């Protein structure tokens, strides 16, 4: 560490705190309450404050507490919540298994297994894509790292699991956002001009995925009924 440093970071200009000859305050001078304070009089002022708050809260001023499961706080479109794996227009996963998100994850919570994609233009896709939601710190670094906009975040924040195994969320669950609504998207790359078009693309892709899923569900139901 003895080699010279190229940078020219300089000592910040400093300003002494005390006069060079000033001694330290070596005794304490505690606060001296006045006559009214000794008679507890300012307490009346305090009571006025609490009474004002009481009346305001009673007659419909905005309350800061919310009734959580029924009422929800509105978060911005940058909220870093549950991840979403985005899809191509044909409903397949957009991810090309480049491992940048896994590399950029400070919590090391992303596990990917790659395979060859049938389409030569795409080359790779993830067979397994898992995020351990208990390890995840929701920093958004995976979104920053993704060169394909394949992983974005939603503003869904209630994630609760009964077991640790459930907390490892796989590809299918990540591709299946709970409802596809622009308002529910969270932290993602910002493109002010293109947002409308992108929103449409995402919605179309989702509709395809959703249709395929429903068809599959119908088939399983039919097969189950047939048996």
């Amino acid at each position, binding site marked *: *560490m003895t*080699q*010279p*440093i*190229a*940078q*020219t*970071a300089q*000592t*910040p*200009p*400093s*300003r*002494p*705190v*005390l*006069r*060079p000859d*000033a*001694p*330290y*305050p*070596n005794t*304490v*001078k*505690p*606060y001296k309450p*006045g006559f*009214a*304070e000794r008679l*507890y009089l*300012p*307490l009346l*002022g*305090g009571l006025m*404050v*609490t009474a004002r*708050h009481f009346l305001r809260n009673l007659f419909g001023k905005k309350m*800061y507490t919310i009734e959580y499961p029924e009422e929800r706080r509105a*978060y*911005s479109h*940058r*909220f*870093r919540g549950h991840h979403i794996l985005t899809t191509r227009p044909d409903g397949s996963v957009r991810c090309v298994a480049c491992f*940048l998100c896994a*590399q*950029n994850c*400070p*919590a090391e919570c992303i596990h990917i297994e790659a395979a060859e994609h049938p389409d030569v233009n795409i080359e790779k896709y993830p067979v397994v894509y898992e995020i351990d939601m208990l390890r995840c*710190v*929701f*920093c*958004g*670094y995976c979104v920053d*790292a993704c*060169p394909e*906009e394949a992983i974005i975040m939603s503003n869904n924040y209630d994630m609760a699991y009964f077991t640790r195994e459930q907390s490892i969320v796989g590809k299918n669950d990540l591709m299946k956002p709970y409802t596809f609504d622009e308002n529910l998207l969270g932290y993602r*790359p*910002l*493109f002010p001009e293109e947002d409308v078009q992108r929103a449409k693309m995402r919605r179309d892709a989702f509709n395809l995925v959703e249709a395929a899923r429903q068809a599959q569900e119908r088939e399983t139901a039919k097969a189950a009924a047939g048996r």
Partner: protein
Amino acid sequence: MSTLAPLSETPETATSTVQELEAVRARFPAGSILPQDGLDQPTWIVSRDVLAAVARELKDNPQTQFDLMLDLCGVDFPDREERFEAVYHLYSLHRGARLRLKVPLREDDAVIPSLIPVWKAANWFEREIYDMFGVRVEGHPNLSRILTHEAFQGHALRKDYDPARRWILTEDKIYKPHFDLPPGENEDDMFERMTVNIGPTHPAMHGTFRLMAVLDGETIVASDVEIGYLHRCFEKMSETHTWQHVIPYTDRLNYCSSFINNVGYCKTVEKLLGVEPPPKAVWARTILSEFSRIMDHCVCNGTTLVDAGGLTNFWYLFQPREEIYGLLESVCGARLTVSACRIGGLIQDLPPDFEARCRRLLEIIPPFVEDSEKLVNKNRIWIDRSVGIAAISGEEAVNWGWTGPCLRASGVGYDVRRAHPYDLYDTVDWEVPVLYGGDVYDRWRIRMLEIWQSLKIIRQLLDRGMPEGPHIVDDPHVALPSKEACYNEMEAMIYHFKLIMDGIRVPAGEIYNMVEGANGELGFYTISDGTGKPYRNHCRPPCFPIFSTFSRLIQGGSLSDAIVSLGGLNIVAGELER
């Protein structure tokens, strides 16, 4: 009449102490002190034999007056013959000068003399260097592990310690409290005394601290605290991650004002890189730091009163905090652990309604703070509970290494924003409030006064208007290229991959950089060896020296006073134990 230096005084640079330092150096045998070119502050390599004498001289010499020992940390260089280095950071309040002392140590003879007689602040820092590096401290009254468990084996910050190593820690080896009993007494004849244990999971302990107090009736005769329940070795973890990845870790230092930690860390790395963040980022950092400070003070003052039985004030002060969380969330997408800074700027461009939201906050916050002041400031119940409780004089506080609001409540107006202006603090008009009581009451009041000053700073910056331009520095070696460029341009794509795979290449060097955290000087001492990861990243947590004083503060008081004084100190476990 004030002992504080006037503002109009021309800023003295630290170089003005060069001659004085040379004079001190000349008094010691040739070769025992070697000056080194420090990037940020004068650096001396001091031989261990003269360390105690040098420290005493630096403190007592009226020409230098290094009376504030800020930090002591160790560094491990396994390839060197003198493997360890103990690094001291000193500060002179009278001259505004800094000095770094490095003491090289051989592995087979890793012993340093204790500097507790010179600076009491050295006490816990020396225990930390013993715990983390196995450097023994001669003359230390209680040399035991501080951050890790007693049954922990090895020394976590040594380079040959595997970061993934796990231990099963059992109860058969636990911390033995060290009571600083009055002279002439020992633990065995404490027949009439009772030792009580509070914590680590006790609501009054604000986190996970364990207080063991020897009581005589209700009076505390002696006490000791055990910390480390929230230790996660953030410093070791930074060594295994790239520079950019450390930012989420810094969120968890002082989690009440995580934005300030982000700024502190990013500024340190930016200094080392020689990168200047764009004006918009600096502007937003200053504003959001001040909002975070308000939030932190609200939490501290709110919960202090809860300990004394006043719950109403807590509700009033938590409402501004809730609104500020909303603002932070709209900027970066998270409320508590914001990770809102990046090296070279901010996470994303500011939202279009940023200024409007800030202005709204400036209207929302004052009524609540006013109400709280009306409730509490002249309330005799609170005055009786807090005036004169856990009082400490400015001189003693400095000796214990205090900084921040707690020190300013004892009459020493040291504020990094004023003493070493950074970001935009030098361009706005504000004051450093100073009180002279040094007790719980004045610590409460100083935080309220600081909230008003923070609001004043924010208002002036908003009036100035948001600077135009990018939110992050336009340097592909530091900041990721924009997504648009990354999708469409080959070159940007390559930079993107390189930055993520290898991390930022920070030139080799060392730096200590500080910002004013919500409870004092938050410093980062960072060493780079030129690779994509920090070689050593040490955080100087402001509440570490403050909490080391706790046993001394509560001695002689009653147990309920101890609880009230703990709240007023604003000890945050995440930062204390890293």
